[in-house]
């Protein structure tokens, strides 16, 4: 039992950046916009958070700066696809390319700079409880924030009026427009929120997961986050579950490899998270009705009032 706590902590750490980014993208996609630039926004968030962290020593400020950078990049995306009606897939890919370059440029002076990890919560008595203590009361602030924001997203989408409007915009923007909802403004807010969340995901990487800056350090997590949204059939609860499942799977294959339980080449073990995603995707997609129930109908399509 004693050895369980660190394993769970590792899974939580692996899941948190995915959770941030995927929850953000979920809201974006629910509004009918597909932003494939998550990886670029995460990198932007990671580098700016790290720079602010080094310069000010203030973790809160650093995370906020990361979120702001993610938002700034998302704003660029919004101008392109909402203002100038550019293709969302291509613009998202361009944003990733741009984010990789820009973050590398900004971070040039910060390579090889150490930064103390974000402080972990310590509640005397509670944190000291074996196994459960460190899991529930010994994390850093961003981990709690990711859980709180996930709950907030779920509540917003399904329990608030604003969330209902956002979903109707994603479902049928023309109808929403006809009723008088400001489609473009609602989508802009959703895209900005997605950017901030991606930025937070990046900030978690450079402030807590591996407190350093290195070029392209997100290493494809932005893409995994995108996969998670579909994997979860656009439902917040399943995004949360999926992020933890994926984090667990990533670590499980490393454990399997080092325990030498099964003797297959490491490349095949490394394939397991991707193959598992496909299998789960197939299983959940077979029920077409369920997918259609949650998938935003207008996703990825340009909206213009003239139709």
């Amino acid at each position, binding site marked *: 039992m004693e050895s369980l706590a660190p394993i769970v902590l590792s899974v939580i750490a692996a899941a948190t950046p995915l959770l941030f980014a995927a929850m953000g993208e979920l809201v974006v996609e629910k509004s009918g916009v597909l932003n494939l630039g998550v990886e670029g926004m995460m990198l932007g968030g990671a580098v700016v958070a790290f720079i602010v962290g080094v310069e000010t020593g203030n973790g809160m400020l650093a995370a906020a700066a990361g979120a702001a950078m993610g938002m700034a990049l998302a704003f660029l995306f919004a101008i392109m696809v909402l203002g100038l009606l550019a*293709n969302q897939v291509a613009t998202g890919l361009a944003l990733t*390319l*741009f984010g990789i370059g820009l973050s590398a440029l900004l971070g040039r002076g910060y390579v090889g700079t150490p930064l103390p990890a974000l402080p972990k919560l310590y509640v005397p008595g509670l944190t000291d409880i074996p196994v459960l203590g460190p899991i529930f009361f010994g994390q850093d602030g961003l981990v709690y924030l990711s859980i709180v924001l996930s709950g907030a997203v779920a509540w917003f989408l399904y329990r608030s009026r604003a969330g209902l409007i956002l979903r109707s915009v994603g479902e049928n923007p023309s109808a929403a427009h006809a009723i008088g909802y400001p489609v473009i403004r609602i989508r802009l807010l959703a895209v900005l929120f997605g950017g901030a969340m991606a930025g937070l995901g990046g900030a978690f990487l450079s402030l807590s997961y591996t407190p350093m800056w290195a070029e392209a350090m997100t290493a494809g997590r932005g893409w995994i986050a995108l*996969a998670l949204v579909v994997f979860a059939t656009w439902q917040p609860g399943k995004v949360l579950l999926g992020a933890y499942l994926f984090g667990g799977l990533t670590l499980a294959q490393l454990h399997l490899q080092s325990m030498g339980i099964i003797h297959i080449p490491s490349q095949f073990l490394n394939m397991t998270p991707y193959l598992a995603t496909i299998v789960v*995707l197939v299983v959940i*997609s077979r029920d077409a009705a369920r997918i259609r129930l949650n998938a935003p109908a207008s996703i990825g399509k340009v909206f213009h009032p003239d139709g």
Partner: protein
Amino acid sequence: MIALERRLEVSRFWLYATPVLAVGLTILSGAVMFAALGFDPLEALHAYFILPISDLYGLSELTVKATPLAMIAVGLALGFRGNVWNIGAEGQLILGAITGGGVALAFYGVEGPWLLPLMLLGGMVGGAFWAAIPAFLKVRFNANEILVSLMLTYVAGLLLVYLVTGPWKDPMGFGFPQSRLFHDSATLPTLFENSRMHIGFPIALFAVVVSWFVVSRTLIGFQIKVVGLTPPAAGYAGFSSSKVVWVTLLTTGALAGLAGVIEVSGPIGQLTPSISPGYGFTAIIVAFLGRLHPVGILLAALLMALSYIGGETAQIVMRLPLAVTGVFQGMLLFFLLASDVLAHYRIRFGSRRSEEG
């Protein structure tokens, strides 16, 4: 207030003028960025756009770099027109390299003019097979092809690493992860002495022409367009969207696989763990820059290739960091994509109606 008004017909003028406008804007803002970073803007632009293609060698290299991009993008565009989002061309390229390269290794040392065509065919079959998986899962189980094809890209990459570090490792290679060098009959001939321009480029041109023909002159091309534009209408007309999924994915896969086997039998000459610097992903951008039109794609592939090579040149001659190239490419893409709006919409200022355009 500025408003956009949809044009009834796509503006011919702006369709051709916007790329020029975008390149102009990129050059302007690029110059500002270079200057801000302390580099001579004129020298930088010269290094990006002129130096790399200022002689025949440079031009031939441009075709080498543009060949896989154009070949894959032509296939992708077919799918994108039909709303089939294959994001995993990179994986299909790798599989094509594996199967085509596997043919070369299976017949190692066997000379004969039949080997190279067999390899190219093997590459196409491999790429098509890898694309058939998302096609099957989409048609049969409704699984999202964006994710399946993307996940399969990672799987293909790991499979290649397994093969070159395991069963296909060069027995004389001191344990390093790479296959034998392909022998002469398994190596793509170059077109000119002292250049790496190989027959892949004419093949890519051929693919461009065929694709143009398919899109504009054949029934399946028409079906793809209809399914892409208005799925319900296609249903009424009796077109099967499953057929479009299969046709576009298999075509893209085959073309990507072909690009893969051409890379390994041409400029690389063996199987190594990293055979593509992300051609399959860059081709997505190329397809959109070319406005999904075969000729546009060819030009876009050349422009993208130039920006990569120019980035290298700028590093060599003026020590411009690679990161700047990423930002510069990003700007170019943003401007090209953004200016597209002018072709489809007209800009109105205030409430006055403008009659021109």
